[in-house]
């Protein structure tokens, strides 16, 4: 506004404005920077505060603990980038764990059981996407409903009990590898890394990725430039559903029982990771790198505070403060740059 009224020297006005904003601009353009700094500070702090934190086994354990929620958060990131939210992601994944397990127990070969379950997860998430894009229902309501439905379906299907997972492909992601004979990796960690890498690549390097951001940032602009908003939204939920299916497989690698009551706060935990990672709940800003950092921050806080002997209620309190802080920061940068 003020710029168009300044008749002379528009360029100069812009330049000085930019210089004083340069730090803010740096953070606005690299949303991963803030969370990464926070993660490093936390790691350094706990390394000095406890004698047990700073060792390779502990780091490996922290990552192992984060992969299921982290992978749920990966799918969640895609949905949130479109300015949506998925409250049903963990319930879909838990349904996936039961479907895989029961199909495999019922003599289907492991790979078939797994593929059927992943397809089922994708189908359920796609249904959410269709309700959001075609019937224009708010994602919060659609996925809240889907959460209730999938929780009920899972309870009915599991008959309310846990099911042991047959050995083989379904538990394979729990297999450990040792790098340099020392650093423990699980196959689940490898799969999570691959999923994050592929999703990052697709978001950054393809037209589809650009469209996901555009649809989330300014749907009307996306529509006027000819992007198919409906198709983009449905495809996002579909891809997220596939990722939830993989999260189900990872969950069985961590604990070889399919438990209908597992990951009950997985949906909120995944949102927490996404938000702390700097992705905007308003859509169109952020990305999967931030989500990795966000998931790690949560896990590092838990691990570090536990090792300092601090009550788990304070861990939740710290996480809560971080979430609110992250959203406040996002809001502030958005308002200034808008």
């Amino acid at each position, binding site marked *: 506004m003020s710029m168009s009224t300044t008749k002379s020297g*528009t360029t100069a006005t812009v330049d000085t404005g930019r210089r004083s904003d340069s730090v803010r601009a740096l953070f606005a353009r690299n949303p991963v920077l803030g969370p990464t700094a926070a993660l490093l500070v936390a790691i350094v702090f706990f390394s000095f505060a406890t004698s047990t934190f700073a060792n390779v086994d502990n780091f490996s354990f922290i990552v192992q603990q984060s992969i299921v929620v982290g992978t749920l958060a990966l799918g969640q990131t895609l949905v949130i980038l479109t300015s949506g939210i998925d409250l049903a992601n963990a319930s879909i994944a838990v349904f996936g764990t039961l479907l895989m397990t029961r199909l495999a127990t019922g003599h289907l070969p492991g790979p078939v059981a797994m593929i059927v379950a992943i397809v089922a997860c994708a189908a359920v998430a796609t249904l959410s996407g269709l309700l959001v894009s075609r019937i224009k229902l708010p994602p919060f309501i659609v996925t809240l409903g889907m959460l209730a439905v999938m929780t009920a379906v899972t309870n009915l299907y599991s008959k309310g009990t846990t099911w042991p997972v047959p050995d083989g492909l379904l538990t394979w992601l729990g297999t450990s590898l040792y790098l340099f004979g020392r650093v423990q990796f699980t196959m689940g960690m490898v799969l999570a890394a691959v999923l994050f890498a592929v999703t990052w690549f697709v978001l950054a390097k393809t037209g589809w990725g650009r469209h996901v*951001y555009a649809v989330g940032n300014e749907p009307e*602009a996306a529509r006027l*430039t000819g992007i198919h908003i409906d198709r983009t939204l449905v495809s996002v939920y579909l891809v997220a559903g596939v990722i939830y299916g993989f999260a189900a497989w990872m969950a069985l690698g961590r604990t070889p029982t399919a438990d209908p009551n597992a990951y009950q706060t997985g949906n909120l935990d995944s949102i927490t990771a996404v938000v702390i990672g700097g992705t905007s709940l308003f859509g169109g800003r952020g990305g999967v790198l931030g989500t990795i950092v966000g998931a790690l921050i949560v896990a590092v806080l838990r691990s570090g505070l536990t090792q300092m002997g601090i009550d788990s209620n304070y861990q939740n309190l710290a996480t809560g403060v971080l979430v609110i802080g992250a959203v406040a920061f996002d809001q502030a940068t958005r308002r200034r740059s*808008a």
Partner: protein
Amino acid sequence: MSATTVERAAMLTGRGLVKRYGHVTAINGADFDLYPGEVLAIVGDNGAGKSSLIKALTGALQPDAGTIELDGRPVHFHSPLDARRSGIETVYQTLAVAPALDITTNLFLGREIRRDGLLGKLRILDRKAMRTEARNQLDALGIATIQDITQPVESLSGGQRQAVAVARAAMFGSKVVIMDEPTAALGVRETAHVLELIKRISNRGLPVVLISHDMPAVFEVSDRIHVHRLGRRTGVVDPKKVSMSDVVSFITGAEEIPDEAIAW
């Protein structure tokens, strides 16, 4: 130029277009004619229905009634993409830019350049080509105040944002370029640039539609002035035969358009 034909045929026409929003009739039986190579200004009061008219012509909204013809053939643009594919580029009043995305991405939104060969089949973008092309286009338009094309559009001034939207239309328009108040947020110098650009596009042989409230600008560049009032075209005048204050009274309805000023 190539205008050797004696009788001019309109290249883009609208007949009896209607669009209602609930009780509001935004377009009320509007007609529209655009001839090859001309610069047509559309003027009218706020809320007269100018933006709605060009949205109907470019597939951004679906008219309730009326017909649209491009090169004499009836067309139905179901989405802005259809119109873009037919070579019609539009600078919408809202600019249609995604503020969080960078300039290059915005310029190519929905029309990204892909890599050659297998990588392209995998839909991988050629970001280098897009950046080079974006740079060239902005330079060609004389929009030198934009130094860094990787910066998000929201970090630009209102005028620079408008320049990006104009650049996009100029870049991709192959048949018609339509601009809805492209100079509304611009300073004197930037407005002059856009008017220069309109003349240049016109010299390329492309017709340009310019919606504007800026009378001096309208009189500087337009060949004909389409007067829009209460949702319909009340007449088209020749800027050489009327004054700016005449046009203002046609817009408000204070005066009827005299026959000798009409330029159908």
